[in-house]
């Protein structure tokens, strides 16, 4: 049970992703201006974080691949 060596490292990426959606980051992002890509800032930030989550989880995938397969 428990996490493998690679997964323990990969967990850091998940934590980063979750923090990006949580206060205090959300409190900071909770504003209308500046508009980015036409969207009010909070909507942009949340969409941006979705993309960042994809990048982070890709890194997590690579990390587990590198550490856990022989």
């Amino acid at each position, binding site marked *: 049970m428990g996490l*493998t060596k690679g997964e323990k490292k990969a967990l850091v990426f998940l934590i980063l992703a979750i923090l990006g959606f949580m206060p205090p980051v959300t409190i900071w992002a909770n504003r209308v201006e500046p508009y980015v890509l036409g969207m009010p800032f909070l909507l942009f930030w949340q969409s941006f974080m979705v993309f960042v989550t994809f990048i*982070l989880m890709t890194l997590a995938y690579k990390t*587990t691949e590198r550490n856990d397969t022989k």
Partner: protein
Amino acid sequence: MTITLTIIFGWLLVTTIVGIMAGRNRVFSMEEYFVAGRSFGLVLFYTTAAAEIYSSFAFLGLAGWAYSRGISIVYALAYGSIAYGIYFFLGPRINRLGKTMNYVSQPDFLEDRYDSKFLGVLVAMVGVIFIIPYLQLQIMGSGMIVQLASGGAISWQTAVIISFIAAVIFVYISGLRGIGWTNFLQAIIMLFGMVSVGFLVSRHYFGGVQSMFETLHQLKPTHLTLPDTAGNGIFWYTSTALLSGLGFWMWPHIFMATYSAKSEKVVRRNATILPLYQLAMVPVIITGFAVAAKAGLDPAFGAKIAKPDQAMFVALLDSMPAWVVGLLGAGGLAASISTSSALILTAANLTARNILQKGFMPHMEDIQVAKVGRLLVPVFTAIAVAFAFLAPSMLVSLLIVGYSGITQFFPGVVLGVFTKKPTKAGVISGIIVGLAALFFFQFGGVKTPLNLQPGFVGLILNFIVVLVVSSFTKNVEPSRLERFEKALSMQEGN
């Protein structure tokens, strides 16, 4: 019949045929019917998982909430990301356990892990109860699409009955494999369709997305930021996002879908790419805001929206050619119906197998269980239809009610997969305390502090109770723990 409605019914016919074709020539067995013989590869599993997500909630609910309640809908973007991130770690293990221990349903795992028939039956019952609001959401959404597409010729009640019949037929003919293939088709329509149309609606009314938002900001200055504590504020957002993010994989039907993946690698790669699918929600949310701005400027347009969840479809009908609305409506309806059938299938399976056979009538034979399950299909659908008529509610609210219940499985599942600590007594009392807190805050007339989501407060108490009670109650016998430990050693056979 309108062009829109013709296209919608035509599509429904095509998906039905695809469902029949996919289910043909396969021997009927429990494993085949419920987990598609554990054979889904990357693409099919991805679209199945994605289409579960892309249901009435995404097509209508997101826009309805953005239109009427505002920016707090971004909780949906947060919770999906959290859910897929957790799946990266949890999913491969659930898939492995399903394979090595031959689990078919969610309670199978909990019953076996904690050596408790009672826990298995409890989890099955709670699962079935909280599937109902989720199913109600899908059926209300389908009804709304059919009603609006008919231009009012079909009443909402009739439309709901039509989708009820479609869903039942769909379940009978196909099982999970049929659902998988039709999902694949509609995922494509929805993905390309919604993304382009989402931006086109804003352009149609306001010339662009930013000018639409600027107009909306002037009309409703508080619509685009979260309030501090009141209403759907920061605390509501945070607790709802966490509740749903942690709970996503606790849905009995989604938990089961994990068993259907061919390999752990398929599950993990899915967890990595699923977040991208959520970007398709953004244009839907933008459309909800566009409707709010348009309705603010033009009361005659606003008057067409009888219920907030109609916002998306009313905007499409008003601004797009009939055939485009027809295609999107068809995709939306098929998404609702396929999600409905997965839910109905799961509720029937849980009741027949985990509650009746395992809990009360151990002498029942598998073939009888399958028969009872099939008989229960229209029963559950009818219950959801009754709720749709008697207690209609906003689609997003219904989804959150469902999450509030099923997320109470999270401590038992996660602690049970990753640690040896929790005991049977701990997990059972945790679920009961969590649900009791949920009911107290939901119906007891007492508000949660800071407007936190009641189910989230329940989840916190649940976690505490599991840890405390497990510290002084008896753990399962060592041989059982060893069996799980052996199955879960993730080093080999990735």
